[in-house]
């Protein structure tokens, strides 16, 4: 579904990603773990082209999205949803409008269709009663659930999560993780950058350990968490678990 081949990202003097290659299957949930500054977020942002890769190729359903002569970046992004650490809800729109704006403006849905879809999504994230609330009136956890609904409204083929619970109060983390678990069980293709090892262990089909712009180790959660092979992985996990 998503195939990354020898991905590099450079900012002037900084070499952030040093040749990432991996493949994510349809319906697979992949968690990316690793220390801060290891390039996890950059990797994620490259997948939906929020960052322009310096080198290498990304294929989404066998289409090379790094080939700008042939693809429309905006269409690629519409197919790959993203959930941010800081939610990034649109503060001038209600929860409902946050969810409907993209389908209406980009997919050309009628307002009724979009609202129909939005109410179903709000139901799914348990916030049907908050449809008319503005982001500032919602807790962090509620905002993040709305943000997930917003991403889902575009019916994306995959969802990318960039540390979705890192900006939340501890007591709100679970409600967001629950929504994510439901999505995983429904077969959504998900790539999750996270520090929630419990979530990774429980939900992920595969865990990637990244450091210094490279994938140092990958495998099933059991393999990574119980019997890590790489020294760096061991060191990291010993500090975190």
């Amino acid at each position, binding site marked *: 579904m998503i195939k990354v081949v020898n991905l590099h990202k450079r900012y002037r003097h900084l070499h952030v990603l040093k040749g990432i290659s991996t493949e994510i299957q349809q319906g697979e949930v992949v968690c990316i773990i690793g220390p801060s500054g290891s390039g996890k977020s950059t990797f994620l942002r490259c997948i939906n082209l*929020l960052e322009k890769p310096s080198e290498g190729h990304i294929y989404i359903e066998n289409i090379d999205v790094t080939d700008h002569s042939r693809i429309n970046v*905006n269409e690629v*992004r519409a197919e790959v*949803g993203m959930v941010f650490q800081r939610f990034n809800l649109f*503060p001038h729109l209600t929860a409902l409008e946050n969810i409907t*704006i*993209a389908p209406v*403006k*980009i997919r050309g849905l009628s307002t009724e269709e979009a609202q129909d879809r939005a109410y179903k999504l709000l139901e799914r994230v348990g916030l049907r009663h908050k449809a008319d609330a503005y982001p500032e009136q919602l807790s962090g956890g509620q905002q993040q659930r709305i943000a997930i609904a917003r*991403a889902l409204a575009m019916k994306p083929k995959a969802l990318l999560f960039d540390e979705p619970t890192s900006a939340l109060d501890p007591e709100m983390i679970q409600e967001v993780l629950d929504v994510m678990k439901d999505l995983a069980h429904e077969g959504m293709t998900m790539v999750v950058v996270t520090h929630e090892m419990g979530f990774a262990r429980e939900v992920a089909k595969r865990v990637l350990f990244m450091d210094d712009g490279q994938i140092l180790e990958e495998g099933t959660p059991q393999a990574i968490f119980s019997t890590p092979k790489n020294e760096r992985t061991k060191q990291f996990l010993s500090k975190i678990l």
Partner: protein
Amino acid sequence: MKLKVTLIFVVAFLLCLAVSGTVLCEPVSEITTLTITSDPEGADIYLNGQKLDQQTPLTLENLQPGQEIELVLRKPPLYKKSIPKKVTVKPGKNNVFIPIPETWYYYMWLYLPTLLKAAGMTLFLTIIAVFNGIIIGTFTGIFRVVHNKLLNTIAGIYVDFTRGTPLLVQIFMIHFGTPPIIGHLLGTGNPVPINPFVSALLALSINSGAYVAEIIRAGIQSIDVGQMEAARSLGMTYRQAMRFIILPQALKRVIPPLGNEFIAMLKDSSLVSVIGMEELVRRAQVIITRTYRPTETWIEVGLIFLIMTLPFTRLVAYLERRLKTSD
């Protein structure tokens, strides 16, 4: 006002003529008279410090030629004491005209309608200039942030030039600098003078545009980059993200600084008085050349400006408070 003064002069002149006419028709008498007229009439007369029962205009008789008298006129409560006038009575008919100055409050009251009308012009000029400025500035402000080198450069030069040169110089450039160019373009070579109103409006609009552009740019850039990223991640084009996500938020934040720009422009518009544009300051200058009373006039002009700006200052403060709570 002008008419009134002229009228009084004419009346006084006719009065003198009538008086002298009747006198001329009569056989030459030895009576020595002194006719006292004033502007306004109906003033109390103090002759050598002694208040007379009658008021101006008045003809005193039974005077001795060579007699020296001092006249002071008063007309309370709206007029001040006139400057003492010494008169040496000559044989025959004597005439003396004494103007009585208005008190400061009556002076201000008298010129208030004229100044308020001029203030209306100032307000009108400012409203149109800022309105144009908002249109120019919105485009220029957006041109400064979009990813287009050419637009960035053009907008940058315009803003830097306008903000980096004095408004007075810009006014001169437009009013005095462009007529020869227009003449040259028309092929006649003769400078084509521009109406002061047009120059003033042009200069103020262009000036305002640059400042509004900076306000809009700052407003757009004050929106968290996450907003743009979130919009783009949903598949919006840069244009769509700007239109539906960034600008609606930016424009809300931009309202208080725009109010400040309006206040600044209201004050700065006084500079167009130098090219003869008849607004508040210019009007005041014209009045002063006639009345020689700069103190009261400028205080009044200052107060009128204050009364115009104060409500906007308060409004801006209120909007800032409200935006702060909703952010």
